[in-house]
């Protein structure tokens, strides 16, 4: 048990801090060219794809250094290290693990250089949580697959250039996890129709996508035919709650505390109400628990111990906090908490109120809390499955 960093790790942290000091101006001083320059610079540092192998263009960095990098970036509220969030999070790692040499040469630099973005085509209208049951059909015809079907709740689809698509190439299988094939599809292909979906906060971050006789060259298949489920599982495993996420949440807690300090409730400073104080403390305990849980799991990885489904623990905390923190800010402010941006009494431009409508992006998007509970109960505690499989 040791929370001290080695001199090498300390000096890496210093390097990151110095870089941030030199290259991250205050938000209002960032010009139109800023983001492009930023992306170039962090790419030159090999901080994009930090832990990816050097051979493919990654940084070849270790887990501790990666967590230091993420923590410092989050503390500094820096922009992301690349614009292709999903490419960096799991499409890239999936290609590194399962892709052909040609695919690696084609897509890895594309992702690392932020040339375009990927979205993730998993969920279908009738199979939101139950991914293995998908029905989108791909038929091999000569040197390409012909894809027909529909995906939905595809985050970022309205802007994405590529999609990592889960299709079914074999309907006659004993186990539904078989017969699934993973394709990389150009969103500009003929027959791809994207229809953005408006959510309750008024945002259009996600979309339905219809595929009608879409031709996908065989060389854009990721992994073997019929073995797409393994690619997906490995991709989802890369979707880990990270130290950067925790740092962001501590930052949010701080802004919530500031809000409390400036709010009056029932004619008295809100900070004097023990219920308010204890609720904030409970949020802090949950976020701190996420932090130390994460460090324990990171240590396991460092020791090459297998990680089971422990990350579901932090996902459940995250879900509870996503729902409760913004709602708490709203409730604290009474009627003023109802106001949206533009209202004369809106709290901080109505940002808490809007956020209080956006929790499903995280809470439902990453697997619902009930799914996470099933994962813990079945995979960690060994309780019987309640599903059909």
């Amino acid at each position, binding site marked *: 048990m040791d929370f001290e960093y080695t001199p090498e790790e300390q000096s890496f942290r210093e390097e990151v801090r110095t870089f941030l000091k030199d290259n991250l101006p205050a938000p209002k001083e960032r010009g139109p060219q800023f983001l492009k320059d930023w992306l170039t610079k962090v790419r030159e540092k090999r901080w994009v794809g930090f832990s990816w192998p050097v051979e493919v263009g990654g940084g070849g960095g270790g887990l501790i250094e990666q967590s230091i990098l993420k923590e410092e970036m989050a503390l500094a509220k820096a922009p992301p290290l690349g614009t292709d969030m999903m490419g960096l999070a799991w499409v890239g790692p999936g290609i590194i693990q399962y892709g052909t040499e040609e695919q690696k040469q084609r897509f890895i630099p594309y992702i690392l250089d932020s040339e375009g973005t990927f979205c993730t085509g998993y969920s279908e209208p009738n199979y939101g949580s139950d991914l293995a049951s998908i029905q989108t059909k791909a038929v091999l015809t000569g040197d390409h697959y012909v894809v027909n079907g529909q995906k939905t709740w595809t985050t970022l689809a309205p802007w994405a250039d590529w999609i990592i698509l889960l299709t079914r190439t074999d309907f006659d299988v004993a186990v539904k996890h078989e017969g699934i094939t993973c394709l990389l599809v150009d969103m500009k292909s003929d027959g791809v129709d994207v229809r953005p*979906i408006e959510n309750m906060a*008024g945002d259009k971050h996600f979309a339905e996508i219809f595929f009608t006789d879409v031709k996908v060259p065989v060389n854009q298949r990721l992994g073997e035919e019929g073995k797409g489920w393994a690619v997906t599982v490995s991709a989802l495993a890369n979707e880990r709650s990270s130290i950067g996420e925790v740092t962001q949440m501590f930052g949010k807690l701080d802004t919530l505390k500031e809000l409390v300090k400036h709010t*009056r409730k*029932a004619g008295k400073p809100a900070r004097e109400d023990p219920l308010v104080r204890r609720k904030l403390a409970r949020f802090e305990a949950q976020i701190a628990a996420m932090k130390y849980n994460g460090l324990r799991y990171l240590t396991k990885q460092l020791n090459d111990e297998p990680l089971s489904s422990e990350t579901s623990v932090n996902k459940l905390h995250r879900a509870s906090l996503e729902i409760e923190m913004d709602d708490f800010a709203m409730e604290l402010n009474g009627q003023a908490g109802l106001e949206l941006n533009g*209202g004369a009494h809106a709290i901080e431009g109505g940002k808490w109120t809007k956020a209080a409508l956006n929790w499903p992006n995280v809470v439902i998007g990453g697997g619902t809390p009930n799914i996470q509970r099933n994962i813990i109960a079945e995979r960690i505690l060994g309780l019987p499955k309640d599903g059909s499989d």
Partner: protein
Amino acid sequence: MNFGFTEEQEMLRDQVRRFMHEDCAMTTVREIVSAKPAFSPPLWKKMAELGWLGLIIPEEFGGVGLRWIDLTVVLEETARGLSPLPLVSNTLAAAALLRCGDAAQRQAWLPGLADGSCVATLALYDEPNWIDADAVTLAAGDGGLCGSKPYVPDAGSADLFVVAFRAGAEHNELKLALLERDTKGLSVTDQPIIDRTKPMGTLVLDNVSLDPDRVLTLAEADLTYLTDCGAVAVTAEMVGAADAALEITTSYAKERVQFGNLIGKYQGVKHRLADMYVDIESFRSLLYYAAWTVDDAPEELSRAVSLAKGYASDAFARIGIDAVQLHGAIGFTAEYDIQLYLKRSKWARPMFGDTDYHYDRVAELGGL
């Protein structure tokens, strides 16, 4: 002793349900709230004809002369379909006139409120989360009223504003002003809020002179009474809206299949729905009793309504969130109706006091 509704009340309930179904279905609601102000003159006229606008107004002033318990029947059902029409506001303005107005004032204004020709609203507190005489800060000066009155429900559609103001420095030196929309120096700003079916606005008052005929006394007990009536009305709406949210979610659980089963077969879903049912049944019972006390046991009103609204504010907020969550991704699309109920639950929570306020009062009234 009879804790049930009469045949007349059940007929009234059917009538409102029919109206909501035929005249004010969710597509209509969405149309109405997409305009400014979110109001429909023909539907308002129809509600007047059906007698609902003057439901608690005595017959001598053109109303129907029924009781608050009858009103809860109407509000429960209009809220089931998230009606955006200012029935609560109009009724609370009428309650203020009945309680605080003199004979001439009642005669002058109540018939218009009952027949729908004058849409009225009531605005009490100037602080967003404080129910107290001290939270009325708008003060009358030499030039009349100057400043602003925020958080006015249905300000966009109202013709008449019944507005609390401070007539002196003492804690309880309050009065009500009757201000018409075209009053000189008065203008209205919209406050965009989370629930578009419950519009809100701010009155900007630039030396609005006060006609003595249009000023009503407002004792502290009156302020409490009107706040409690407001809480009864909003809680009645919460019962209807929460019930609809449960119904929509239950139906969804009976048709949506995941992992080879109807999701309604999983205890993770069914137990949550059962808990919603328990909560709704419970704040419904508390609300019915509170509504009965308005006319029949006013000395018990404060405690009764604080139990009801205290319970409902917490429970409905949880129901709104969980109803969306149990739907999965579809529940938070703008197209799907369930998210409108979540927004209503957020709106209803602070109105006329949140759980903390009401439970604090229960403790105080209980001798703690």
